[in-house]
């Protein structure tokens, strides 16, 4: 305790003078006011009963004198302006970084059955203790390290604001971005007196976070870590996806990957729900560190939303529940639009396309139609007719594109070949699956000049005669006219056409297993089953109802989801304005589900371990003299209410 106001000797002198004055006034006050009465004998008879209370009256007067002295002592002490040692030490500016990663939702070591404390609760309590221990010249900032770094309370010396900010901290669903949080903390306290960084974490960090913490400790700014660990047992769903069968698009299969991240074996049950209906239940026993993949096959494609959940007889084996659930959405199946531009003489091609099934919609079109780009695949089989001047920007399959020299076909011409022999073919290419071009007789043909990235599916004596360029769209060139060969007579021809259509079909629309939580990822609207035509903005609505508009560039938009679950993507403009599709977002990150502390292996220096929280200052709202004056006022009120309440006139 230090006196910031008058010195002790001055205060003693003041108290002595004041006490003397009070005593003198009390002695004077004891001279009673005289009242002349006409009948003193009767007064004496009346007041005789109160004689017994004379001693108490004297004692009460003595007590009142003592109360006045205490009042004087309080006032004198207030003038001295006493300060606790916490108030007179050098000011401190501390950045409290609270790890709000998903692992902080885990049970704390201090938890009991009655009070199941989470690690984040312990960290928040420690942060509050730190704030309560701030002196009047100290300041603090509270930074939350989640997938996104945020400031719970800006740099302030107002404990109420800081405590309110700490109260709002809750664990996120992903890994903490500790690097950015520590960088922000360093910038916040830099150039401030007594700069400190206090990291409250459970140590379950990813590599980047651990490295950031190491860098912080090695930095000039004092950086200390306070650990709040707990049991590390956790079984998590680390992957969950659903897809259509490539060959049977009306059927689905679901994959779930479950990993035991704890130190003991665990028995859990995996439930898979499709649109709320259970479609599979698998009991799983996992050794420590073991990963198990479970696949549910031949599920009805009518179900589009899948959910996987883990349960166990011992809930402690599951650890925190943020990674015990995962979601998957299968995009709706839209029919593949195929356009055939032909002179009508190749009936074999017509027959091959007509046999493809219901999910392919075939249209005959003219080569100059402007909306050819809307088709998923366009066949050009014009025979003796030239190609149109411009080809549509979509997947193309062109037969004999270089019959005429001024062809717009993007793959350059090699040379003309009379009676080419098909000598080599890429057997493993999906387009040539079950297809054999050997011994096909061809009247004439044209080879191609390949560019890097082009695939030569079939060669004629080393020269590519069937090639495919795969960029944004597929461009397939067949360097001969089927009419001038016996290929249409072979079984390979419809298989080749079918392989091509299925290849395009698998490519557009593709399927998205799920979006990872916390990462910014580019998603194609077409991949989600939404036609991107004219769409410039979409609205992403999370499972918590939070909506956010995102721009769309070339049919793709970036999405960074912070809440696991099924998000809704709604087109705000374009041809498909108002249309909605869904995409699943899963935590599915073993690093985030890892509850073991990495700091034990880092061998942090002793000075990096945080000390106990400072003792709370007696008062944080103002100096101590205000409390003394309040006490004096309370004492005056008490004395008035008990002794001086009588109205003396």
């Amino acid at each position, binding site marked *: 305790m230090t006196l910031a106001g008058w010195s002790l000797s001055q205060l003693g002198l003041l108290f002595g003078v004041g006490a003397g004055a009070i005593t003198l006034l009390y002695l004077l006050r004891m001279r009673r006011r005289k009242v*002349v009465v006409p*009948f003193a004998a009767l007064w004496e008879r009346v007041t005789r009963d109160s004689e017994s209370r004379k001693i108490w009256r004297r004692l009460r007067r003595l007590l009142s004198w003592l109360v006045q002295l205490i009042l004087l002592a309080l006032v004198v002490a207030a003038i001295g302006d006493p300060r606790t040692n916490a108030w007179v030490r050098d000011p401190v500016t501390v950045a409290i970084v609270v790890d709000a990663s998903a692992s902080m939702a885990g049970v704390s070591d201090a938890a009991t059955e009655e009070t199941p404390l989470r690690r984040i609760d312990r960290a928040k309590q420690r942060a509050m203790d730190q704030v309560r221990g701030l002196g009047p010249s100290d300041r603090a900032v509270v930074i939350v390290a989640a997938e996104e770094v945020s400031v719970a309370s800006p740099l302030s010396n107002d404990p109420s604001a800081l405590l309110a900010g700490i109260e709002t901290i809750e664990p996120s669903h992903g890994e903490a971005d500790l690097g950015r949080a520590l960088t922000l903390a360093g910038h916040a306290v830099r150039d401030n007196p007594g700069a400190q960084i206090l990291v409250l974490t459970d140590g379950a960090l990813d590599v980047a976070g651990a490295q950031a913490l190491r860098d912080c400790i090695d930095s000039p700014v004092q950086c200390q870590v306070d650990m709040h660990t707990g049991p590390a047992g956790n079984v998590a769903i680390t992957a969950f996806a659903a897809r259509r069968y490539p060959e049977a698009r009306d059927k689905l299969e679901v994959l779930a990957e479950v990993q035991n991240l704890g130190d003991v074996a665990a028995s859990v049950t995996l439930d898979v729900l499709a649109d709320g209906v259970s479609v599979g239940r698998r009991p799983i026993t996992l050794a420590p560190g073991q990963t198990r993949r479970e696949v549910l096959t031949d599920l009805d494609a009518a179900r589009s939303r899948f959910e996987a959940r883990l349960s166990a007889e011992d809930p402690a084996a599951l650890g925190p529940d943020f990674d015990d659930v995962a979601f998957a959405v299968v995009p709706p199946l839209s029919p593949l639009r195929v356009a055939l531009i032909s002179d009508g003489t190749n009936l074999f091609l017509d027959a091959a396309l007509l046999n493809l099934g219901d999910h392919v919609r075939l249209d005959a079109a003219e080569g100059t139609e402007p909306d050819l780009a809307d088709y998923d695949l366009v066949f050009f089989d014009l025979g003796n007719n030239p190609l149109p001047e411009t080809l549509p920007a979509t997947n193309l399959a062109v037969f004999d594109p270089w019959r005429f020299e001024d062809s717009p076909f993007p793959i350059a011409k090699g040379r003309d070949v009379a009676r080419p022999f098909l000598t080599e073919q890429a057997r493993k290419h999906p387009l040539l699956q079950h297809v054999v071009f050997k011994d096909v007789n061809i009247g004439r043909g044209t080879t191609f000049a390949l560019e890097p990235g082009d695939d030569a599916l079939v060669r004629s004596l080393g020269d590519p005669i069937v090639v495919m360029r795969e960029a944004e769209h597929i461009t397939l060139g067949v360097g001969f006219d089927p009419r001038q060969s016996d290929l249409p007579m072979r079984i390979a021809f419809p298989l080749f056409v079918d392989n091509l259509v299925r290849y395009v079909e698998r490519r557009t629309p593709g399927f998205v297993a799920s979006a990872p939580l916390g990462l910014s990822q580019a998603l194609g609207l077409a991949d989600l089953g939404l036609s991107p035509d004219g769409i410039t903005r979409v609205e992403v609505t999370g499972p918590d109802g939070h909506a956010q508009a995102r721009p769309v560039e070339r049919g793709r938009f970036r999405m960074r989801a912070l809440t696991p679950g099924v998000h809704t993507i709604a087109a705000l403009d374009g041809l498909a304005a108002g249309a909605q599709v869904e995409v699943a977002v899963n935590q599915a990150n073993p690093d985030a589900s890892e509850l073991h502390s990495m700091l034990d292996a880092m061998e942090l220096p002793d000075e990096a371990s945080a000390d106990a929280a400072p003792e709370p200052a007696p008062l944080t709202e103002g100096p101590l003299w205000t409390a003394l004056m309040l006490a004096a006022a309370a004492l005056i009120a008490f004395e008035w209410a008990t002794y001086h309440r009588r109205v003396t006139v």
Partner: protein
Amino acid sequence: MGIRERLFGAAKAPAPASDDLFDEAFLARLELLQVIARRLFRGRQRAERKTRKVGSGIEFADHRPYSPGDDIRNLDWTVYVRLGRTLIRLFEEDEDLPIRIVVDVSDSMCLRGGAKLRYAQQVGAALAYVGLANLDRVGLTCMSQDTHVTLPAIRGKGRIFRVFDFLRSAQTGGATDIRAGCSRVAAQSNQPGLTIVLSDFYDLEGAFEGLNMLRFRKHEPVAIQIIDPAEADPTGSGLRGDVRLLDCEGETERDVTLSPRALTAYAEAHERFCAQLQSSCRTRGIGYMRANIDVPFDDLVLRLFRQGGIVR
């Protein structure tokens, strides 16, 4: 009560100024009082009251044996003829009523500006005027422990100004001593009569004894207790706190803490004291009346006459 008086207590007040004690208004009220009193006692011959004293009256009272020197005109010849004895007829003597008005001039009567003393003087003067107007002999005495002055009995309405002068000039002050005062009044009176004592009777021991002594000396005492309501019931005075009570008639001091409860207790004790005095008086056949100084003096005098407690 002024602020100074509330702060420092009521000091002993000097005797009320005499100039305005019996002013023109007072005299006018006396005249009115006399007319009313005459109407009340119409038909009665004042100053012709029969007394037990055998004298020259016309109403036969008794016989006694003749003694030499007796007026033979009073010899009862009828008895002599019948019985042969010489008896003298005695008659009740008619004489006027001696009225003695005793005014307490002690310090307790002089408090609060002497309101009680002023009131007692006005009542005494009024009674004297009515008595003089009815041909009674009226004497006055002002008494306290230190003062005892007497105006000998006078007769005649025109002597009322001597009464005024006497009351004006009488010395005031001293302790209340009803017993001693009444003893001296009884001792000085050659002829017992109606004795009206105007006092606050703030004498715990001697108040009733003094009155009783008058009765013992064949007087017909009447006690008129002058009461100041503010003194009798101090609950509305605003007095609170630790005070030192000084007796206005002595050196007695008493430290008390005045609270509403203490003030109420005093008012109740005062009422009990008055009631006890009244009870004692009535038990002994002594007239008693409580006179509140808030009541006009002439109303009080008329009430006295109406009740018939003073004049028989």
